[in-house]
Structure formats: structure tokens, C-alpha cells
């Protein structure tokens, strides 16, 4: 579903991502962990087509991000770490806006909005303008907007930040549901317990370089993910 091959991104002299390769198959929830500044957001942004990279290739469902960025974006959705939504729209207007961009029919969007907004208990707040939302509400809205066009791949940067426990559980279920339907999830997180329980595969990145990746069992063995991560990062 998502193939990252030898991805390199530099900012001036500094290599933010260095020759990174990750392969995510359909049906997989793939966790991406690393210290602050390790290169997670840079990688996710490059995969979302909003950041130019220096070397390597990114393909989504066989479509190259460099050759056909629009074709790639049609197949995926991206939720940034801080949901920057249009404050001047109501929640409903924002979802309609996203649905129009992706060409989602009125019937389909209505069904999706009802399903997810009621699950997140956001339905009664949708008519309110986004500037009145809390961080968690914005995050919920960003999640609904990502799910609205049934993407094959969803990439999320720290998706659980700001969510209440109920919403976090719901998001985990939604992630699993997408994968059960043949989609894939690629997300970064600092919450290692969540990654350990939720992910099929995990990649650990340090100073832009991949230091370990594979199935959860391959990466952590008999230890906890936290212990392995801290050991690899040299903090233990």
C-alpha cells in the first residue's frame, strides 16, 4: 500500500530523513516511533505530498508521489499533528468542503458524517463554527474528514493527542476497521503502550535513520516496546 524507498530529506546541511525505507502492506497498522525531531513528521509530510524530498521514491497503491501526486492523494488521507482547520467554517461546512473536494456524493457523506459524528458525540457541535471548538473536538473533526472519502491509506501524526479515552478507543476501532477492509494505517506516536497494543508492525527512527522495523514481535521480542525503544535510543 505504501512503499517508501531510500527517502532522504535535508534542510540545508542537516539530514532530517536519511535513506529511509518502509513498506506497508494492505491490512497493516504501522506505527512510527522516535524522539522529538527524529524525522517522523518530515517522513509523514513527504508521504502526504506536502513536503519535497531530495532522494528516494514514495508510492501509494502503486502510484508514484513524484509522478502523479494527485493520483496518490486520491487514495489517502493525512491528519497533521496539530489539526489546523478553517476556523471560519462550521464543522458541517468543513466536512462538506472536504467531501466536495474528494467528490463524495451527498448521500454517502451524510451517512458517513452521521455515523462518525454520532460515534464521536460531535453531531450536536457540527453546526457551530470551528473557532469555538476545543483541541479534542478539532481532532475528532479532522478524523471524520479523513474518513469521509474512504481512503485506502490513512496517515496520522500523533492522532491520539487531545482525544478523551472514549474517542481514543473509537479511533483505534476505526483504524482496525479500515485495515480489515484492505486499507492501511501509518501513524506516529509517542504513546508506546498504544503502539504496542495496536500496531501490526512498527518502525523506530533515530536522527532520520531507521534503526529497527518489522512486526511487533520482531522488534520487541520478549521485552516491552518501551524498553526496546529506550535501549535503542541509548537512554537506558
Amino acid at each position, binding site marked *: 500500500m505504501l512503499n517508501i524507498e531510500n527517502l532522504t530529506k535535508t534542510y540545508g546541511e542537516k539530514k532530517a530523513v536519511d535513506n529511509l525505507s518502509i513498506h506497508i502492506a494492505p491490512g497493516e497498522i504501522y506505527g512510527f516511533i522516535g524522539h522529538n525531531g527524529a524525522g517522523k513528521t518530515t517522513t509523514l*509530510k513527504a508521504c*502526504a*505530498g*506536502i*513536503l*519535497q524530498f531530495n532522494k528516494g521514491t514514495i508510492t501509494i497503491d502503486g502510484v508514484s508521489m513524484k509522478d502523479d*501526486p*494527485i*493520483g*496518490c*492523494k*486520491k487514495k489517502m*488521507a*493525512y491528519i*497533521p499533528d*496539530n489539526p*489546523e*482547520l*478553517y*476556523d*471560519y*467554517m*462550521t464543522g*458541517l*461546512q468543513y466536512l*462538506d*468542503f472536504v*467531501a*466536495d*473536494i*474528494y*467528490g*463524495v*456524493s*451527498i448521500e454517502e457523506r*451524510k451517512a458517513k458524517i452521521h455515523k462518525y459524528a454520532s460515534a464521536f458525540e460531535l453531531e450536536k457541535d457540527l*453546526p*457551530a*463554527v470551528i*473557532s*469555538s471548538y476545543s483541541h479534542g473536538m478539532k481532532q475528532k473533526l479532522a478524523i471524520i474528514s479523513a474518513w469521509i472519502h474512504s481512503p485506502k491509506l490513512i496517515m496520522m501524526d500523533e492522532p491520539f493527542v487531545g482525544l478523551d479515552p472514549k474517542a481514543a478507543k473509537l479511533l483505534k476501532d476505526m483504524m482496525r476497521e479500515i485495515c480489515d477492509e484492505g486499507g492501511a494505517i501509518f501513524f506516529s506516536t509517542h504513546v508506546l503502550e498504544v503502539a504496542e497494543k495496536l500496531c501490526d508492525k512498527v518502525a523506530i527512527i533515530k536522527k532520520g535513520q531507521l534503526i529497527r522495523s518489522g512486526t511487533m514481535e520482531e522488534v520487541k521480542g520478549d521485552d516491552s516496546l518501551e524498553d526496546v525503544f529506550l535501549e535503542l535510543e541509548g537512554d537506558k
Partner: protein
Amino acid sequence: MIKALLKKQFLELFSVFFRGKNGKRVAGGKAALYIVLYTLLILMVVGYSTMFAIGLGATYFVNPDTAWAYFGMGAIAAVTIAIVGSVFMTYNSLYLAKDNEFLLSLPIQSWKLLFVRLFGVWFAGFAWESLVLLPFFVVFYAMAPGLVTALGVVFQILLWIGLSFVILFMTAILGWLIAKVATHLGRYKTLVIILLFLAGFAGYMFLISQLEGGIMALFNDPEAISEGLGGFMPAYAFGKACLGSPLHGIIFFLISVALFTLVYWVLTITFNKILMTNNKGKAITSNKRQDKQKSVNATLIKREFKHYLSNAMYILNSSLGYIFLPIVGILALVNHDAIQVAIHTMAVDGAGDGVSPEAIEAMIKALLPIVIFFAVGFLGGTSVITAPSVSLEGKKISVLQAFPIHMKQVLWSKIEFHCLIALPFVIPSVIMAGIGLGLGVLDVIIVVILSAIMIFFFGVFGLACNLKYPMLNWTNENVALKQSMSVIFCMLVGVLAPLVFALLYFFVFMNFLMPSIYLLIIAVLFGLVSWMILRWLNTKGAKKFQYLS
């Protein structure tokens, strides 16, 4: 503590020169360009003030008894410019500053916080006032050296500062009023703020026109002057003080200090209360469901429209010219007969040396399309909706970048939106002005075509400038609106381009080109340049937008 807060305030105010996107230091060349642009803008305002002062001086310096009116009118002009220039800054920096919550959480007394905020506002008003008033002083020394006295110079300096307190008083009241409105209104907040601003501006202009008429009437009745001036007292006192009257100077200065004290006292009482209420105002809600799927283009234009309507400052900053244009058109239409009489009178007055009044009248009428072109260029160039539109995306730009759409579609929606707003104002205004000024059908058509092309040009030019110099790292939308280099660029081009073309015609082409042909050539020129900019936007510009951060 006040020193640290002041330092922060001024860093914010001048960050545009020294800090670029991501807070990194601006390259020397870019900083220099900013400084050159702002200097040009300052020179423009100073130039207009100087011309205005010379015009007034020629009228009022003839009789020493009427010289006070020169300074009175100068003070009124300075207050007008300063209020228009800084009223929204007052509202934003006092009540909408993003760091208000942070600063309130620190152990800082609110009077100190208010003092620092007010200092920034005062400084802005003082700067605007100085741009107008200082040329008035210089013109006075040059044109009427006989009226200069040592005491007059002292009071000019004192009232230069005193008038800034009056400006602060007025902007603080308006800013407070806007803040109160914003706190209590939901859906119609933007509309009410705009109407308040326009009503205030119209009322103020009406008062000025009445005042000038009143002053002229008083000059015809010397007894009225000696008996006092009632409603004209502040302008009279200011004028007399600048000529060296200690009584008027002291009264004016004391009143201005009293006004400052009053505003500071009232704001100290209400400042915390307003900040601690929800300054976003009532949440706007809408239950309206979309019942039809929209095309990508339509949905992008709708997004621009929603953004535009959400911010009164955006509307006023980028569309005030379009509000004035219909007024100019209607005035021309209503005063059609008076204009024709005025043209005829000018022709008769200007006749002589073998030139007949008919020939001069024909020449004036032939030049009228150039006058309309100048008005559209001037007002259109200062009202470019696309000029801040990339900067206004801010950090939310990634929402668009992640969508499966070509960024040239996004850019095109911005240009289209600019034209959709501007053309319905510009075209009827130009037609009305054309008819009012007595232009022939062909001339009206040419001026309409040129105006439409110019509006399109400003749309693409503003967008290209903003793409070249975006400011995404703002903490308040109004910083992007007020301090974007693209906005300054468009204003300069809007003001200078028509001026250069008009001067070129008068000094070079007038003898061998008909005005209508000249305007057609300009239209082709603007069209060509617009097409070239559009090509850049569709290719390199779109790519730049895709990866802006």
C-alpha cells in the same frame, strides 16, 4: 518589567523587517526591500500631505487672521489618517492579541500590560499623525516665514504630541466599541463592524465638509471669529496655538492630556473584564445542510468567500476602494450637468492666445477617460483581495496541499474570487462615471474594458507577489493583512502605475495619440503582463504553493 514588555511589543511591531517565515532572520536584501517599500509608502503619504498643505497654505496664508485654519485643517487631516490607519490595530492589539492569555497568567499587574499595549497603539497613531502634520509645519515655515514665532514653534512641538493623545483617545473608544460589539454579536459581527467603521468614517467626513464650509463662512463674517467659534473650537485652538497663542496652546494640551488620562482610567477598569470574557464572541452556528454536490472550483471559491466574510479587517483592507468607486460613479452621474458647466467654465477661463474655449473644452473632455483610468487604478490597486490571500492561509495551508487537486486550481479560485467581488463594483461605477462625465459610447466601452483588465491584472499581480513573499507564520490574521510585502507592493503599483501612464500621456503621447487609442494600448499592455504572470502562477507559482510551509 515594563522595559521587557515594551521590548516584546516592539519586536512584534518590527518583526516584519527582521524575522521571516519560521521566525528565521530575514536576509539582508529582503529586509532592505521591506525598508525601501515602507519608505516609498511613507514618502507617498508625505508627498500627498505636502501637496495638501501647499494648497491650503495658498488659501489661508493670504490673510494672517485666517492662518489658524491652515493648522486646524492639518490637524483634522492628521487625525483622520491616524484613526483610519490605526483603529483596527487598537482593537487587535488590545483585545485580540494571542499572548493576552499567557500574559494574564503571569504575575503582571494589568495596568502595566495595558500601558505597554497602549504604548504600541499610541506609537502607531503618532507615526501616522507625524506623516501628515510634519509636512504641514515645514510648508508653513517655507510659505509663511513672517508668521513664524518662537512660541509658535514651541506649541507646535507640544501639540504635535498632544494631538497624538487625542488620536489615542478616539481610536481607543472605537477599538473598545468594536470589542464590545465583537463580544456580543455572533453571525453578524463582521457586518456590524464594517457598518460601524463606514458609518463612523462617513460621519467624520461629513463633519469635516461641514467644518470647512463653516470656516469659509466665518471668514466672510469677521465678527464671528472675534466672538468665538463654538463647534470649531478644537481646530481653532490648535491653529491659534501653532501660531503662538499660549492660552490656546495650554488649553489644548491640557485637554489632550485629560483625554488620555480618561481613556487610560476607563480601559484599566474594563480591560481585564473584556479579556476574560470570550473575546471570540458568540459561536456562530448554522444547521443548513448542503443538498447538492459542488465542483472543486465552486467549493474552493466558496471557501474563499467564507474566509473573506469572516474578517472585517480583510474586507475593509482589501475592498474599501470598491466601496468608494460606486460613490464616485453615482456622484458623477448625479452631478452630470454641474460637471459639464464646470468643464465649460474651465475652458472659458483657460482660453486665450489664439486657443478657443471650444478647443479647450474638447481637449478636457478627451482627457476624461484618462481620469477614470486613474481613479480605477488608484482605488483598485489599494484593494487587491489576492494580495494577502496566500499569507492568510497561514499554517492551515497544509489542508489544501494534502488534497488531490492541482494547486493552480486553488490559485485560480483566488483570482476568480477577487474578480467576482471587484467587477460588480467597478464596471457599473465606471459606466456611471463615464455617463456622468459625458463620455461617448466608444470611450465608455474602452474604459470598461481597460478597468476589467486592470482588475484582473491586480488579481494576478497581487497573488504572484504574495506567493513570492508569503507570511504564513503570523499569530493574528491582521498581521498578514497589514504587514505583507505583497499588500504594500500592490498599493505602490496601484498608485504609481496609473500616475506614470497618465503623466506619460500628458508629457509624451498627447500630441500624437488619441486618449482612447492610448487607453487601448495600456489595456493590451496590462493584458499581456497579466497573461505572463498567469502563466507563471500556473506553473512555478503552483509548485511553490504546493510546498509552502
